[in-house]
């Protein structure tokens, strides 16, 4: 059986799409990341044109973030004030990112830059997470209390200090806005929601309690991906509603599986798992960079990428 995707202008096996949608949905249920960094390579692999893949997956990430952050909101694990500041910065950053992306396209080096960004950030974030969570597990085994060290740095001297009661923080409002700008910028260039960068940034840079981080990060991703979806559909015409429907169906199924699975692991074990997946994707992209594909390739349409 096959199903025709009107915007991608191709037929595909709907069960395969639903399956991978469920896989990524399960991941986002377990880890609180959108899963865009995984979904993009999977869709490329299935032969979906890159521009359509990147734009359409934004709808799935958006949906996953809505359900995730609603669930966290109900449990009181959402810092709306922090989320709004992050979102404001995020929209600013992604606008800048779109311009930089277009400039990179015009210089012809966009593919290389994207791949290097992926390797650096996936490698860095994955490695940091792996080390940190393994240490936490060891400390727990040794019977010591797990606590995050809070350093007093230059960032605590910044103006516009505000109270964030949910996060139990009293920091400058410029900090979350800056983090938002950075995440929004990277999300526009890399074509992802940015959860895998935002989560560590909130924990290690802002010092937010882990409990609040996932819900707040998902809350921000709703707006970033909704904006991405609208912009892609409006200006590029690359959002495929049929593909989105299949991914959403998979996501609904997967999110259920994800939450059930997440009950079987503790927070540190989940972080080790996520770190391993992130590192695996990083190694795959690094291998592609070093080994390369067929000598000559071609692509229809706007050429590679088409993000933002």
């Amino acid at each position: 059986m096959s199903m025709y995707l009107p915007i991608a202008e191709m037929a595909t096996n709907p069960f395969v799409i639903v399956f991978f949608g469920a896989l990524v949905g399960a991941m986002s249920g377990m880890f609180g990341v959108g899963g865009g960094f995984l979904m993009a390579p999977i869709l490329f692999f299935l032969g979906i044109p890159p521009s359509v893949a990147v734009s359409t997956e934004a709808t799935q990430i958006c949906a996953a973030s809505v359900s995730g952050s609603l669930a966290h909101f109900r449990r009181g694990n959402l810092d709306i004030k922090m989320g709004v500041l992050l979102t404001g910065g995020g929209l600013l950053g992604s606008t800048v990112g779109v311009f930089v992306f277009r400039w990179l396209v015009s210089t012809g080096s966009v593919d290389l830059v994207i791949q290097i960004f992926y390797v650096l950030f996936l490698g860095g974030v994955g490695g940091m997470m792996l080390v940190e969570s393994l240490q936490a597990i060891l400390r727990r085994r040794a019977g010591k209390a797990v606590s995050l060290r809070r350093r007093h740095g230059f960032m605590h001297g910044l103006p516009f200090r505000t109270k964030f009661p949910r996060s139990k923080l009293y920091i400058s409002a410029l900090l979350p806005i800056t983090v938002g700008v950075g995440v929004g910028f990277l999300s526009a260039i890399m074509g992802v929601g940015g959860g895998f960068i935002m989560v560590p940034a909130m924990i290690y840079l802002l010092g937010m309690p882990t409990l609040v981080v996932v819900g707040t990060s998902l809350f921000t991703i709703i707006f970033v991906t909704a904006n991405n979806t609208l912009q892609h559909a409006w200006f590029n015409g690359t959002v495929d509603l049929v593909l989105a429907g299949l991914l959403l169906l998979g996501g609904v199924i997967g999110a259920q599986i994800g939450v059930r699975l997440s009950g079987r692991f503790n927070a540190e074990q989940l972080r080790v798992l996520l770190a391993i997946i992130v590192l695996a994707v990083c190694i795959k992209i690094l291998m592609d960079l070093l080994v390369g594909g067929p000598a000559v390739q071609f692509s229809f349409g706007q050429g590679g990428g088409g993000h933002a």
Partner: protein
Amino acid sequence: MPDRPLRHFRWSRRLLALSPLPLALLTLLMLLAFAAAPRAQGPDVAAVESQVSVGLFSGKIIVRTFGSTASPDVPVRLELIGPPREVVFTQSVRRFGVKVNEPIDAAPQTIPAIRAELSSTERPMRPAEGPLEEAMIRDGALLLLPGAIKLEPTGLFFAEIPLPASAPPGRYSILIFHDHTGTAGAADAEPVVLAAETFEIRQRGFVALVSHGAKDYAFLYGLLCVLVALSAGWFTERVFRNRR
């Protein structure tokens, strides 16, 4: 040699199985064509359907063509050319120690989105012309199908052109001609055209609605997509909550 190539084409596209109705129609048309033409000379005829539509559950696209030639000893060839598309060819080059896909030409070229060449002989067809065509064959944008045309000793021929599901909508042209390759003095002989026709692949139903909606009402379509995503997320959370 064909004195008057008739142009009664009828193309048909169906999901994998042969569907009886268009085939019966084709046969009827063929019979009519034969009846109308002077039998002694044996006319060059082919039958085609002018439009093919793609729906939500369409799979592989198979275009069928029937025909008859006055000189059954000469192999028949068919060339299908798809609608033009912009294409960017890239090659893998080493830069700063890593492999990078770089465009071969900065400006995109315009080439047919899909091309197919069929022949009635089992003899392998021409080799790929350079790395660009090799890449196209690998990705299914260029099909070389020797022996795909069934040519009977009576001069009747039949061919199925299997287009990939990714064949884009648009106007396709088809050229059927005598293949004199390998015969004496054929090197500079012009190919004798049996038939030249076009057909169209169109989107229908929901597929057409979505693809036109996305073009003509881009902003509203975008809002719809966001709305679908938001409500799907909300729905998921509801299902979650009730399950607990």
